[in-house]
């Protein structure tokens, strides 16, 4: 491995995190667990592995890695560094029970002050039809977005769009 200088940040205080026991699997045990070539609990034997040795001591210099601040961070095993979160949005629009309608949800918008909104439609995350004037969906939003605007468009172009805002609590 090429020797390289790793640029680290300023020293920081490492938080002591008590590692919890591994949580239960979130998968439904009745479903086919695609992605597991082996049944749970089965691992390969040392004789089967493709490694030339099975301990870092035996591997010697092959096991040397750069020392970095990032590698030393202590993180819970079940924390997956998600940079997005879910938001449930619901609509109940009586007009949409009479005239077919579709709702679009977007994250980049600003209010015009007259009840309408300027919307950047490149930021939209969902377009979905209303059924009987009702809609319930889950949005997956990246962390920097705290709110979304929902716009209801009617199949009758003479009907003005309707708007509804949603915020994370």
């Amino acid at each position, binding site marked *: 491995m090429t020797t390289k200088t790793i640029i680290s940040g*300023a020293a920081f205080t490492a938080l002591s995190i008590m590692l919890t026991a591994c949580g239960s699997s979130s998968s439904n045990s009745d479903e086919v667990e695609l992605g597991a070539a082996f049944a749970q609990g089965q691992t390969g034997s040392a004789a089967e592995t*493709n*490694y030339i040795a099975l301990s870092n001591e035996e591997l010697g210099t092959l096991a040397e890695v750069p020392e970095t601040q990032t590698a030393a961070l202590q993180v*819970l095993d079940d924390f997956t560094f998600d940079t*997005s979160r879910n938001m449930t949005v619901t609509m109940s629009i009586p007009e949409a029970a009479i005239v077919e309608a579709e709702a679009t949800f977007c994250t980049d918008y600003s209010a015009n002050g007259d009840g309408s909104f300027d919307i950047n439609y490149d930021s939209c995350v969902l*377009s979905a039809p209303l059924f009987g004037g009702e809609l319930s969906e889950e949005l997956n939003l990246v*962390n920097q977005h705290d709110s979304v605007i929902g716009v209801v468009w009617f199949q009758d172009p003479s009907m003005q769009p309707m708007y509804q805002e949603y915020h994370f609590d």
Partner: protein
Amino acid sequence: MAQLPNIKRSVVSSIQKKPEVLRNLSLCVAVALGASVAPNAYAQSADAFPECDASAYLTQGHLSRTYALDLQSGDYKVAADYHESRTLPQYAWTKKASLDALGFNPNDGYAYGWSQFHHAPVRMFNDFSIEPLNVATNGQKHFYVGDVSGPDNVLYLYNRSGKDSGLYAVDLDSSSSDYLSMKLIASRNQLKLDVQDFAVHPYNGLIYAVEANGTVIEVDPAAGTRTDLGKSEVYGNLGAAFFDGEGNLYVVRNYDGGVFRIGIDSGVYKGQYVATAPSATAHDGFRCATAPFSPQAIELSDFGDAPDTYGTYAKNNGAAHIVSGDNPLRMGKLVDSESDAYAHPLTDSTEGDDEDGVAFVSTLVGGQKARVVVNASDNGYLNGWMDSNRDGVFDASEHWITDQVVGEGDNSVTVVVPSDLIAGETWARFRLSSNQGLEATGVATDGEVEDYQVNLLSDKVSVSSYPSANGFSTVAFEDNWPFAGDYDMNDLVTKMRTRTYKNSSGITQVDIEGYITSVGAFYENGLAVRLPGVLRDSVDETNLEFEISDGDVVASPLEADRDEAIIIITDNVFKHVTPGESCDYYRSEYQCGADLEFKFRVSIPFKEPQSADLSGLFDPFLFATPGSFHGAHFVNPPGRSYEIHLKNQAPTEAFDYSLFSGVGQDASDPDSGKYFLSDSGMPWALEVGTDWNHPYEFVELSAAFPDFPAFATSNGSDNQDWYLEENAVTDLIFPE
């Protein structure tokens, strides 16, 4: 350092065309300078370049796409998608198949250079195909620097490493007894050139270049000496160099495409900015050195982007809108001004996408009305076409918006989607102009054309986009698992977005698109996406669509002989990207920037609606390229059985579970559902839900993004927006 001016998206006034007589010059009219004799006009061969035109030809990429560059305006167009070898089919080319050290020979009308694949000089013909020359190369394999001397009728080549490196001359005079001989005329130690390319003066036969530190140098090949002439104040890797007929040297900077003029004959050595060419990890190029700088005038217009079957290129009467004035009529904020189109899958959108004026705010369902919002800079007439039968042309019956009057600002337009559409991806074209009665092709005197790829639906479905309709998320990998790396998180970086189509019964289709933005690694890796919970047999493979930007698709990306649905984007990213000259990696080192080289898109319909929980980016993963070295700790190259997934994402059925042996820092525990995490809980792959700027090479994540440690150690409670550029140390992240 000579800086590029703050260039806005160009809106260029019309340039009056020069008289036609200049376009038809077949001879280079040379003014004799110094003691050298001007090159002879060549006896035209049918396959030689037909005229000494003023374009500079730039070659880039591992299969060397060539652009014709207008030095005056910076406008460029593709001259050749790749260089067909007259001796080998394309599929035989490998990642080191670039062409370098190119130069135009005014004595015979061919271009000459060096092929990294053939390890030999090559002749290039007027169709940009190449043929290796039968030259005894003394074991030399690689040259990146070179040019043809018109006065001496030789190809000069220079390398600076390896045995017998230095300046070589290949005799190109077919009447000479030394024809196609290759001789070392000055050693590397004699000249000590720090250059990525040089150019030969069209009249005095001397060699000129600008070194990476800005020094302008002159090399006398006969004497084997170099002279430092002065400072250009142009710094960086200058991968292409040309002359014009007035004795000016032009150099093209790799990382930003800046073109600079150096006055060799005038002695004005400080570089003058001229234009911006496509940036690339590596450049080379050639030009008829005796051609004057001022090319024929060109009238710039805005063209569409759809495939040329729709009428996009000028030669096919493509839709074009003449661009003039400081505030031209347009849709959205941006409008291109160019001499020709960049038809899909090519793109000219690397500096800002001018397809920004139309928003599809509702889905396009057959038989339903859809809403389109068009932003116009001023009043005009809007026309639109939708290829609803997906036959690759805009039929007269598909003219779905006709001369609709729009005003300045956002205009909500209702369209009726044909009920007899063919569902799937297709193209739509919008034209705004003061002209009425526009067709889908042809020239308009003002305005803009914007082409969009859209998805037609036969039924009402909900369409979820992650992270958003036109945004990208980023997946960044360290590829040294099970050993912790340097955490610069740029060994493989890909931008991705997904779309999920769902009806009342389940998910009917998913789309994935993205591009590789960095490969800061020596290991050869592939990129794939698994669809969790979806069986391979559930995929409607007949109607699966897969596109890549740099070549033809020759096989389905759906991995064969699997139970799971796994999409192989590529089995080796190095097939698609090239490290730059004097760079070890692709887009991870300082001043090793370049345009994007590999984009992909795949649409995956299902035979029946799926109940699987498909969300986010599904399951992107890295795997070792089959047969390639992936560390001396492996007995055999692990190939496809080696994968790296996001933390706690189980590997696919192809993975060798015996690799979870506790070696290195890996703390995977399949029994507990823990995968690809270190003994401190850190991952080898991260998804950052935005268009993220990765750290420079060898800069660890915590240094480039100081808010990251608290985010990690608080397990996501603090600094949840750590990844935003405003929270980064700007000097430590690779600019987009």
